[in-house]
């Protein structure tokens, strides 16, 4: 009798477990995510698990704003006012399938007054409430840069020095797709997880470029700037995998010596340390101090894999600016402005 009761109980447990298994199998059954490389359109079948107690199979088509193949070139200059001028030219590759209609970078410091926007485009600088710095935008609505076209004249000025950052670009989405009749899939299902990863990792097309990144105090303080630059070297360039550890150690030592010299107001020592940094960079990339536009063949002169060429070029520019500011400061000290004339005593 006991055995029979136990058998009945086990049967019920097995039935319940099996029913649960069937439900979960059904929930995933029919889900799919496919990509049509000819049209660039994703088709997704997924279960909406959140709008009601029973999962409902949904169908949607969508396109990502990443069907573009942009190139971003930049030049760096110092303005007469001592600001760094960042100029960009964006080219939409011939293989692009969408019109490129949005260019964005994050600047540690930039103001709308210094932004230049080419004709036919709109520009805007947006300070970010939850992060330091601003978003610098250039955009077009209802149109964009056609495949194969390029556009220059995007520029911004900043008191901050450049570091390697990203310029983000977006393609214009087509408006004729069916879209989602809900909020779309969530990570609750396997297809949903694929979808979420897909859209979150493919929100824009990024290209590395120099962007305002190294804070420079006003008035200029070599110790602070060098400390910021050293942090950028140790943390940002390393995390971006743009420099190897041996060169980081070598440059780090030079930065420490330079910071020490700056603290002690040892201008000669500081200048020598900075020149050593530039020399170390030149050793890695002979044409590190050449502007990108002058560099006709990127690969021919590249000598080292120890540091990315763009990173070396930007770092060299930073050190060059610091050297110039030091020289300017010295010059001011040697030739101080005449004292304001006061009433005769």
């Amino acid at each position: 009798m006991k055995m029979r009761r136990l058998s009945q109980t086990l049967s019920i447990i097995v039935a319940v477990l099996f029913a649960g298994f069937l439900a979960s199998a059904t929930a995933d059954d029919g889900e799919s995510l496919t990509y049509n490389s000819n049209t660039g359109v994703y088709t997704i079948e997924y279960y909406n698990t959140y709008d009601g107690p029973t999962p409902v199979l949904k169908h949607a088509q969508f396109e990502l704003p990443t069907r573009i193949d942009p190139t971003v070139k930049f030049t760096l200059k110092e303005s007469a006012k001592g600001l760094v001028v960042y100029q960009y030219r964006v080219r939409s590759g011939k293989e692009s399938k969408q019109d490129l209609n949005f260019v964005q970078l994050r600047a540690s410091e930039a103001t709308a007054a210094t932004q230049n926007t080419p004709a036919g485009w709109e520009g805007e600088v947006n300070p970010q409430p939850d992060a330091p710095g601003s978003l610098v935008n250039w955009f077009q609505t209802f149109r964009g840069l056609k495949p194969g076209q390029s556009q220059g004249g995007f520029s911004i000025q900043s008191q901050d020095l450049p570091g390697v950052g990203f310029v983000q670009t977006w393609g214009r989405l087509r408006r004729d797709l069916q879209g989602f009749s809900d909020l779309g899939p969530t990570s609750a299902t396997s297809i949903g997880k694929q979808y979420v990863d897909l859209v979150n990792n493919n929100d824009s097309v990024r290209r590395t470029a120099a962007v305002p990144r190294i804070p420079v105090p006003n008035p200029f303080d070599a110790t602070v700037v060098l400390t910021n630059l050293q942090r950028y070297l140790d943390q940002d360039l390393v995390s971006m995998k743009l420099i190897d550890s041996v060169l980081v150690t070598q440059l780090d030592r030079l930065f420490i010596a330079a910071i020490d010299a700056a603290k002690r107001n040892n201008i000669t020592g500081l200048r020598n340390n900075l020149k050593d940094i530039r020399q170390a960079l030149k050793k890695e990339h002979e044409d590190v101090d050449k502007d990108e536009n002058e560099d006709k063949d990127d690969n021919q002169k590249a000598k080292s894999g120890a540091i990315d060429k763009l990173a070396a070029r930007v770092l060299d520019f930073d050190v060059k600016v610091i050297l110039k500011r030091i020289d300017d400061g010295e010059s001011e000290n040697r030739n101080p402005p005449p004292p304001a004339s006061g009433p005769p005593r």
Partner: protein
Amino acid sequence: MRCVFRCVRSSAFLLFILSPMHSANAGAGVDCVDQFYQSLVDAGRACHADQEASRDPLAGLPTRVCFGGGETEVSCDGGSCGFLGFFESAPIGFRASNICFWFRDPSCLPGEVFSGPAPGHCGGAPQVIKLSNDAGLPTSDTLAEVEPGKATTNLRVRVFNANGQLVPNANVKLEVTVIAKSGGHQHDGPPPRPKGELSNGVVVDTMITGNTGPNGMGFAFAAPDPAGDHKITASCLDRTCKQEGPDTVRVGVKGLVPIPESPTYVLITPNTDTLHPNNHYLTPASITVLQKLAGRYSQQFTAGLLLNLNDASLERGGLFDIGARNGIPWRPPHVTHKKGTEIDIRANPQINPTTSIPEANFEAFEVNVRKVGATRCPAGAGPAYAGTDNQHYHVCLTGGACCV
């Protein structure tokens, strides 16, 4: 067999003698207690608020008889009841042995000497069980503040003696209850509102037991997705103790503020979802971005078109279960809307032609979203819930991953 009382008065003491009597005589016992209670009242020794006597197992006993003596739980043992002595001379003693009556006085402990019916007259101050937060207490009455879906591991339960010294190795029980209609939800179920879960490293449940060891028992509280206030009731299993101090874990996102009125947007009020009346809360940073977005939109389209704002987050964030009004509480549909960083913006001109973003402006609106550093969900062109009455833009105001 029941036990009843018989009063014996003496000049030196009052003595209750409990003796086995037949039920027919039970009334005499009740009278006896009544008389005794009256004598306490006459003597100005009324019970104080936290004293009470259990009515069980002798139903019908006066409820305000309060002798203290801790939770002296005894049972009638074959009808052989003992003595209950109540002495007026100091030190006044209390003895209970094998009697079929119990007294509950939270301020007295088993074995402590009872010294009279007035407040605090036990033979020592009560033992106390306290919850604490090793990371510090946010406020005097709050044990911890935890974000929905997250856990805090800094909690500890300790028992202290009369002198405030730590009592080691106490067996304790902790149990979670959720305070009704807290956290911005004007509903509690069914199904019941999810409770926070406790863990002492051994057991994970809404009720756990354990030993405090030499330094108290550490435990964690894992918050459910909905915001709300969770009370942790602590008690001793091997002694009588009284819980004091902070006992409430507040589950919610800190720092959310109501979206202010603005000429550049319209808050859709009142919320038709009466179970969640306060649906317009965001982080200050998100409000800044929202104001930019709405400002740009109103400048761009000057024909009096304003963004109409629907659900953002509840006042303390967490799960925004708008399905509750359809009888499906404590689960999405609002998959996100939890952190005060997302908002729904009306985009159903077919239903709301004057208060919605017109279809002709959809693309411009989407560009505006990107300009201010926000993102949208789902991916692709156009609003969420496309083609339905509920068509709207779901905007993640602080950017980053939006679809989850």
